[in-house]
Every structure is written in C-alpha cells, then in structure tokens.
C-alpha cells in the first residue's frame, strides 16, 4: 500500500501529540508500519504545533512531502491554514472550530479573522473541508481538553483512513489515563456521530 499521510496541526496544549500517538498506536494494532513526528520543548509552549503520521509499507520519513497529505486534521483554524502547503485537491481537511488568537495578533489590536475567510482560503487548496464543532462536543463530553479525541472520532467516521474504529478505541484505552477514559470515549463517539450525521 502507498503511504497514507496525515498532518495534525494546532496550538501547543491542544493535545495534538497525544492524538498522533493514538493514531500511530492504532496503526500498530493493525500490523501496519508507521512513522509519527513530534515536536517537544520550547516549540510546544502555546506555539504552533505540527505532528505528522504516515502509515503504510516502506514508510521511512516521519515528515510528509509538500502537497502530499491525504488528511489534514486541524485543531485550530489558523493553524490548519498554516499547513495548507501539504494539501492537494485530493486532501481531506477536517477542522475543529476552537479559535485561539495568537498573542502577536491581539497585540497588533486585531481580532481573529472571520472563519468563512479561512474556509475560503482553505478551499483554494481542497474542496473537501469538514468543519467540526469540536469545542462544543468536547464540553458536552465533559471538558474542552478532549477536543483532540472528538476530532479523532470525526476522522475515523469519514472512513478515509486505513484505521478501523476498533483499533482506534483500543489505542485510546491504552493511552488515556483510566480516570478520564469515559470522558474520552464519549468525546470519540460524539465526534464520530457528528460526521456520520453530516452524511445523512
């Protein structure tokens, strides 16, 4: 199989690394080969964070070639746009709606750009954009902190990845602290159903 390339983008603190690790662990459960790239340390402190997950035989590079993402999973609209260079017209873009203003923007006295402007720009790269009300659903599950898992639910529901729902749930159970497992399972289901309902 050709490598399946995912780019996860957002802001440090949104749980991007955990989401990437869950995807990678699910891939291992399916006996697939996988590479996950992460960023740690200073780069994470409220800064732009990108993690990439590549699944398939003979994947070697942990990084995705520009224009070659199959999926961009955006945790934050501006950061989704910042990573549009990985998209082609075939790319599926799934985007959460939590808007986090970069302090640099606020300092200039500017407010967050309108979401429809960001969508318009994203669609210059790919028409396949799914917006997910990740923040609302995460809070419904119990905490804004589980947006990452809401988005994983949404991603798996599209059926576009080589990862089965069961494997992802198993990986979730393995990596999420037991105390928060119920909340995460709920978050996953809410994200999953959200996308399923879009199709009906």
């Amino acid at each position, binding site marked *: 199989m050709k490598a399946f390339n995912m780019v996860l983008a957002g802001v440090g603190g949104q749980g991007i690394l955990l989401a990437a690790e869950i995807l990678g662990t699910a891939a291992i459960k399916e006996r697939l080969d996988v590479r996950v790239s992460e960023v740690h340390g200073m780069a994470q402190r409220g800064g732009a964070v990108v993690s990439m997950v590549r699944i398939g035989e003979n994947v*070697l590079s942990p990084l995705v070639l520009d224009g070659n993402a199959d999926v961009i999973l955006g945790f934050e609209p501006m950061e989704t746009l910042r990573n549009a*260079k990985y998209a082609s017209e075939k790319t599926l873009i799934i985007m959460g709606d939590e808007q986090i203003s*970069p302090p640099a923007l606020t300092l200039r006295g*500017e407010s967050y750009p309108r979401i429809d402007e960001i969508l318009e720009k994203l669609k210059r790269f790919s028409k396949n954009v799914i917006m997910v009300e990740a923040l609302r659903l995460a809070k419904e599950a119990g905490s804004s902190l589980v947006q990452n898992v809401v988005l994983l639910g949404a991603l798996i529901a599209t059926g576009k990845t080589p990862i089965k729902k069961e494997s992802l749930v198993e990986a979730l159970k393995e990596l999420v602290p037991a105390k928060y497992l119920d909340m995460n399972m709920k978050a996953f289901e809410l994200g999953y159903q959200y996308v399923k309902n879009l199709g009906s």
Partner: protein
Amino acid sequence: MPDPKTLLENKPGKRALLLGNEAIARGILEAGIGVVTTYPGTPASEIGDAVSAIAREAGVYMEYSVNEIVAVEVAGGAANCGVRALSAMKHVGLNVAADALTTLAYVGVRGGMVVVAADDPECYSSQNEQDSRFYAWFSNIPCLEPSNPQEAKDMVAYAVEISEKLELPVILRTTTRVSHTRAPVVFGKLVKLNLKGEFVRDAKRLVMVPANSRPRHDVLLQKMEKAREMAEASPYNLIARRGKNREYGVISSSSAYNYTMEAIELLGLDADILKLGMTHPLPERMIGQFLREHDKVIVVEELEPYLELHVKAIAKDQAPETEVYGKIGRQYFPRSGELSPRRVLEGLSAITGRKALVNFENLDKRYAEVVRELPPRPPVLCPGCPHRASFYAIRKVAGEKAVYPTDIGCYALGYAPPLNVGDILICMGSGVGTAQGISKATEAPTIAIIGDSTFFHAGVPRLLNAIYNKHRIVVAVLDNMTTAMTGHQPHPGTGLTGMQTATEPIAIEKVAEGCGVKLVKVVNPFNFKEAENTLKEALDFPETSLIVFRAPCALLLLREKRRKDLEIVPLKVSGKCTNCLACIKLLGCPAITLTENKTVAINENLCVGCGLCAYICPYKAIEPAKQCRGGNA
C-alpha cells in the same frame, strides 16, 4: 506516552510504538547498562524521563545530574570501574561536557560507555544547530548515527560492544527527527545488568598529567585504527539499495537517509545507496570502493558537510575521476536548517535533472497568498505563568534604561513584546556572566535573568565571579520549582531524585548567601507590590544582589488542581472595561483576546485565574467569572 512499564517487559519480539528516545531507554535495558546520567535538554529529555520512571524496578541507577559535565564524569567514573554507563544530553550540552569527554577519550573506559548527543537541526528548541559529529572527529571518539527508533535502540548495545572492545566512550548521535519520531520497535532480550564495579589503580592510564597524557594520545590514535576496521565490518554501514545500471551512487546517514530513500523512489532514479550508521571513523575502503563503482556520487546529509569532506578526501586518493555532489562548491542541499522530503527531492532534482511529480511552484504561489495575512505563532509564556508576573514587575520598576541579560529556559520567551525583558542570550548561565561585562562597560542598571534549574547548572560560578569582583548586578532567579521547558524534571531545588526518591532540597537563597551575596530576597511574584518593592531595593544596592521570584510553574499547578478535582476559576471582563487595552499591551497573555467588535475578552478555556491582569487593570474591570466552590485558593 505509553506506560513506561512497557519498557520493562522481557518479551523479545514484542512490537511497540516508541519515541526514538523511549527506544534508547529500552536499549539501555537490553545493553545491561547500570548507570544512567543526564541533564534534560530537548531533543534528548525523554531518555532520562523514561529511565527515571522505571529505574528502581529495572535496578538501574539513574540521576538528573546538575549539568552535563557532571553527568559525563559520573558515568565515566562508573565506567572506569567496569560498570556500563550512559550519559544523555542535547547537542549544546555536549559543549558543557566536552572538557571531560575529550580527555576521557585519553583515559578510556573499562565498562562500556555511551554518550547520547541529540542534535536539533532547525533549532526547534535550541540556541544553535551545531553538528555534534565534529566532536567525535576531533576527540577521536567513535560515532554512531541511527536513522530511526529501532536503530536507536539497537545501537545502544552495539555502542557498548564497540566501547568495551576499544575501551573508549562512544557517541550515539541522534537528531530531532530520530529522537522525536515514533515508530514500531521490536524488543530484544533484556540483559542482566551489573552495578558492582571495582576500581583498579593505574595512574599511568588514569591520571592525566602531561607526562601520562602524551603516550595516551598515541594509544588513542591506535584505538582509532582498530575502530576504522570495525567501521569496515559494521552491520550499520551497508548498501541499502541497488539500482540497475549504477547511474548514481548516494551516500547518506541519520534522518537524511529516510528522505533520500523516498525521494529516489519518487524520482525513479537509478541509484545505489550507501547507508552509513557508523560515521566516525569512516569505512574508507568501503567508501573508496563505492566511489570507484560510480561516476557520480551524491552525499545527502543534514547540517554540516561532515561526510562530504571525508568522502571528497577519500575520492582524491582512491577515485579522483568520480564527481561528488553535496554542499561544498556548488550547494545542492541547505547547510542550515533541517532537511525535509522536499529539500532532498529538490536537491536531487537539481543534480540529476529528474523532475518531481508535484508542481511546487504553483503550490508555493497559492500558499504565499494565503499565509501573507497569517500572523506567526511563536511559543509564548503560558496563561498564569509566574514568569509573566516577574517580568511585569521587573520591567515596571527597572524600565527601558536597564539592560536584561537572559538565559536558557521558558523565561527566554520574556524577550518578546510586550514584556520586553531579555536583551542578550547565549547559553546556560550566560545571563549572569554577560551582565557583569555589560554593567562594567555601561553602568546601566543590569538585571540578569536566570531560572532555577539553570542556576544550579551554570549560575553558581558566575555568581561567585560577580560577588568577588564586586560587579553591581541584580540576579533575578525566576524559580518555578521545576525544570519546566523540557518536561518538568527535578533539579537540586526540588527535593526529588531521578530515582523518584525524596532528598534534601537545596535552597537557592542559601547558596547565594553562602557564596557571599549580601542582599538576598525571596518573593512570590504574585504578591505584586512586594515583588516591585524588593526589586527597587535591589537596584539601589551598590554590589551584587539576588532575588528569588518563587511560584510554581502554571502547568504543574494546573495538573495538580485537576488531579485533586479543584475548581479552576477563570477571570472575566466586566462592564467597567473601557477598552483601554492595558492588559493586552502590558502582558501579552494568550488568554486575553479581542472580540470581533474589538472589545477585550478573556478566553475561559485558557485562563487559569492568576489575577495579574486584574491587578494591572486601571479600571478594576477584571473579576472572577464565578464564585468558586472553595478549596481553590
């Protein structure tokens, strides 16, 4: 992070998804290493963290040393008693350790010793992007370069094997894309480790006075000849791919190898690849043979043209007709920043004339249009970070005229507007050092910023220098009670060891007093008025003074509150707000934003309720968003 206990499983053949650094931790157990020392630094930190989490059960001794040279000396001491040891650090940590390591090469070791140096091309979390391979070269220390987590694990045992055969320490050099890549890793057998060593007196070998050093230098050079033979036979130096007609030969190592392999497939190049995993000393015969087999050889490597220099020297002697392409002369690959699939693809395209399938020009054009408007999002101090309160007080009291030499840690982020505290930053401890020269040369009020972990690592000798030479500087120790930036490791001020056992914490203020600082104060930066007054007092003091601004890291505090189910009450903007924007212009807190109508709002998902913005608001228009349920003082 998978449960660290996974690393303890004696299940050869088990396949787990591990970070390169976690794989190295597993490698430590598979190599029978008994002593592990480290000072945290990205991208090396998780090696120590993973070992620390399992050290007691594994029977390994692990410590977070006070700095890298101490780490190497502790490991080197143990290794000279026949106990296998490993010391892990980031690339610039190797600068700190170099004084010990370069002469430890003369002394040698008896038990295997590995020094992990994690390079950071692209400076994701570092002050420079130096190439550690040159340390191996000029110290005459063998160097191994894994290209993925599996190799990172396997090479630990291999490094120990080489180390014991040669009686030399071995450098295991990773990069961010090895240390911080997760990939499937197949476990090997666990090896029973030995923590019982024996010191054997042997002054000629161990006491490096000049008369003993001279012959040891020759011994070291003889060892390198043996090492070269090992490189010729190393299972990690191999032809990784054979083309059809050998149109091109490609030599690569480390992260660069992964991009190279994929780029060659994408371009459909007819190329052989020589993959080098042992890169010092280099297998000169093997490289010579490869050069003779090809008219055109391309060297793909990250950062400095280390391999290329050597390959060209070998070519001159063994294959003068072969063209070598890389970065020297005509530059096909960048010498700064990290490589990427695209950078390698474009370099190979330029050399071979083969074109990639992606129309990068069109993509770049569209991308440039959309990101022109996109503000950058560099890392910032977290909401509720005590350093923000300290910086606000410092800047308010000392103002524009003062100079603020700063240091390595989260607080380096204070240099950015609007806090603007941080004027020069070089390396660990340099804030206190440069402050003395600046105050001498300018007589401007000089406030050196340094963190708690950094103070122990590098601050003390600089402080002694300031006191003894009567430099008039204020040392502001921003003490958030942990090594925050690298993932909250303990340090001598925390009262916890790498073995996760309690110990007596060392108080920074006591150290300062003991060194002879005559004005030493401790304040909580969230006691805003007191912090400001204390700083005024220090600025008036004619000699060296030191203030400890002490409050726990906001991330640690937040985690603790969540663990204890304590409520976190964010703040909100009330009707009293006049939109003067003081909170935004003075603090730059990520939780304070502007709404679509340009009015100030606080993001309740980010705010932790520290109260700094409420304190500075001239209209007292910021208040708790709700009554708290108690227990959240």
